[in-house]
């Protein structure tokens, strides 16, 4: 069983790496969101793996997963909301062109 746990956690690590690369390298807000989604997905995998192999009798572990899923959805909604607003004002959601956001 421990091998499965390690496989699952390694997948989580892989997704985290890919997501981190994506979030940093992409120039477009929407693509950055995809990177973040992958990072959150890595968290999901880890949470489920921990629940399954460490605390299967603890439903709170599953509760965590639900919360992370909710965070994914919420993050997307807000990010796309910002993207629309940004695009309306500036005609672009490229982060390089969004520099003045940082002030």
């Amino acid at each position, binding site marked *: 069983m421990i091998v499965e746990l390690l496989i699952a956690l390694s997948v989580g690590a892989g997704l985290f790496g890919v997501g981190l690369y994506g979030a940093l390298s992409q120039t477009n807000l929407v693509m950055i969101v995809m990177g973040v989604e992958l990072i959150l997905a890595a968290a999901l995998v880890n949470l489920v793996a921990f629940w399954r192999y460490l605390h299967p009798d603890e439903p709170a572990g599953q509760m965590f997963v639900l919360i992370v899923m909710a965070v994914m959805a919420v993050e997307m*909604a807000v990010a796309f909301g910002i993207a629309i607003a940004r695009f309306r004002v500036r005609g672009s959601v490229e982060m390089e062109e969004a520099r003045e956001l940082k002030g």
Partner: protein
Amino acid sequence: MSELSQYAILFGLSIGVFGLVLSLYGLARAIGRARAEPGKDVPATAGTLSRDPVWVRYHARYAGYALLFLAFDMEMAFMYPWAVVYREEGLIALLDMGVFLAILFLGLLYGWSQGALRRQ
């Protein structure tokens, strides 16, 4: 039947569909191949040969709904487990979910009042 074997059946069925479709394609291929001719591979647009690519930044007019949907959709994740134990828990479940849904419905009402629920 254990749960894992059920998933295995579902997985096998999915693979089976691919097999079925591939064999159908093979049969069709046995009948003949498509012949390349001028104009044939251009997407059909009502008798006009329109060679322009159409993959463009598409203006989805339902973006407002889509935004609300992204968030509102999450509600189901909580509702299903709740529904399963609803009769067991009784009134508390009704009240609890009532509050939760009321909160979400507030968000919907806000979006509605601001004009998210219309064609943009």
